[in-house]
């Protein structure tokens, strides 16, 4: 569309900021490591202390990459949902993906006492949690979608999403009631969200599914732009609404589902990053928005993770809290400053 060139500079700046955030994120942590050694260990040269290399390569680097994947993935899935449902309040959370994932995980962690015995130990492995979360999120989203095809009213869809979230929350409460203290703690810690638990193997699987989701979202750019006109116009332009809707939903559930599965339910990013991006770029064209949301999401997530890490201390704050604490004021400030919501 017109003069994409004017955006090139913004994209360049954002990309540089992303690179800076990436290196800053890796440099900061519970132990101080000089930047020179951080850089050396990244390019594989020797560092002053061998443990540093281990920390960087096996802990901080995968964590930073996870942050980029999580931030960009949640941002893009939020954007897809907002456009599909024509609602600025939509996001992975509102439509029940995360609550679906929570239900899956709760069933695995808390429900294991119900299933009991040998079965239980088999259930609580990292992978079973990942699979349960993915399945849970996909099923809840599918349920919301099936109902949404019937009602066709945007607000109703939103309410239905919230209802599904309430149902899952209620089931989780019931399960919690029967769970042991240890199980409850495990579940609650999952709910805090964590970027730092991924090994390289897990990261590989994560990024494969992530890439698949991103590819589908890129393939949906044209239909997303058509949907800006509303569904009837989109249909009159020859768009196969059902197929596009399915592609958008599958992309979202792949992205948001795996992210929630691997890192826990991370709040706020999915809702806020698309708004942040629209305010800054002032466009609704998804050809611009999708890459911009990618960059913004990754940057914000890296910054939040750096803060959550509390540099040079032993504390790691729950990332879930930090994303909202840092991000919400930024969005409020942008809206107040521009006085007009871009959607």
């Amino acid at each position, binding site marked *: *569309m017109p003069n994409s060139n004017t955006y090139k500079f913004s994209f360049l700046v954002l990309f540089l900021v992303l690179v800076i955030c990436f290196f800053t994120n890796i440099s900061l942590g519970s132990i101080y490591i000089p930047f020179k050694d951080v850089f050396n260990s990244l390019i594989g040269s020797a560092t002053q202390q061998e443990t540093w290399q281990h920390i960087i390569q096996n802990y901080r680097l995968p964590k930073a990459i996870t942050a980029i994947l999580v931030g960009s993935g949640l941002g893009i899935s939020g954007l897809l949902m907002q456009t599909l449902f*024509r609602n600025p309040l939509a996001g992975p959370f509102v439509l029940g993906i995360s609550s679906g994932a929570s239900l899956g995980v709760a069933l695995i962690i808390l429900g294991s006492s119900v299933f009991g015995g040998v079965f239980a130990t088999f259930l609580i492995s990292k992978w079973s949690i990942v699979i349960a979360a993915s399945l849970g999120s996909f099923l809840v989203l599918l349920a919301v979608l099936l109902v949404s095809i019937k009602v066709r009213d945007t607000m109703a869809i939103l309410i239905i999403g919230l209802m599904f979230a309430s149902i899952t929350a209620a089931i989780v409460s019931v399960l919690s009631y029967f769970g042991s203290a240890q199980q409850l703690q495990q579940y609650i810690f999952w709910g805090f969200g964590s970027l730092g638990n991924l090994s390289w193997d897990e990261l590989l699987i994560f990024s494969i599914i992530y890439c698949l989701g991103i590819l589908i979202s890129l393939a949906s750019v044209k239909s997303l732009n*058509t949907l*800006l006109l*509303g569904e009837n116009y989109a249909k009159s332009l*020859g768009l196969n609404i059902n197929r596009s809707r399915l592609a958008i939903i599958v992309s979202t559930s792949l992205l948001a589902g795996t992210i929630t599965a691997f890192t826990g339910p991370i709040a706020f990013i999915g809702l806020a990053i698309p708004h942040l991006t629209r305010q800054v770029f002032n466009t609704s064209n998804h050809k611009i928005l999708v890459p911009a949301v990618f960059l913004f999401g990754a940057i914000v997530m890296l910054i939040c993770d750096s803060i959550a890490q509390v540099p040079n201390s032993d504390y790691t704050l729950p990332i879930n809290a930090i994303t909202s604490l840092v991000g919400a004021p930024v969005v409020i400030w942008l809206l107040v400053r521009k006085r007009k919501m871009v959607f």
Partner: protein
Amino acid sequence: MDKKNQHIILKTKDLSVGYKSKKAQTIVASNINIELHRGELVGLVGGNGIGKSTLLRTITNVQEALSGDIFINEKPIKKYPALDLAKVLSLVLTEQMMSKNLSVFELVALGRQPYTNWVGNLSENDITIINKALYQTNIVDLKQKRCFELSDGQLQKVMIARALAQDTDLIILDEPTTHLDMYHKAYILKLLQKLAKETNKTILFSSHEIDLAIQLCDSLIVMSKNKVVSDSPCNLISNGTFETLFPKDLIAFDEKTGSFRVKK
């Protein structure tokens, strides 16, 4: 030119429109036989609730016909794949679009969607057609404006430009003059008349502006309670068709001025 020899763009044969539920079907209008020719401006008039929208929804393939056939370019509408239909039929609807943050150019460019590649990149040819559509609707100077900045009249022109950019033989507009003041009502309909002549496209619109439609249209489709009549405005006036349009207690059609008068 003799109308009989002109190319027929849209034709309906014994068409019945209405709603189907599991138990019964409600026929809104039946025995609809209309023919629209190339380059014609056609108005669809009728009272509220008489079935104008249902008819438009049916001939645009949004809802199914109860019985009868619809042909576009002599091919049954059912035989068109969605994308091919989008290349012969474009719409201007009454519904508000979802995002008004698009620029006018971007919005008109969306009309090229059936022709663009998977990511929607515009070719030189696409841009030429978009600019032509902007020019034909007199909105070149609005090109970079965003849609929320536009008045209702301007927005309607933009939506018409979008339909033009879709480059179809037939453009159908659902009540394009609602929300507009008297001047802009005339302006939009006059614009449609000009476009039908210049581009040789067939333009069908539904409207409550019967007097304007009588003055500007090549032919009119008049929907009244028992029948659907299609003819040139002059013939319709001399037939007395407009008398049947509304209940006779409040307004009457004045043949001399071609408009309705309130009874005193």
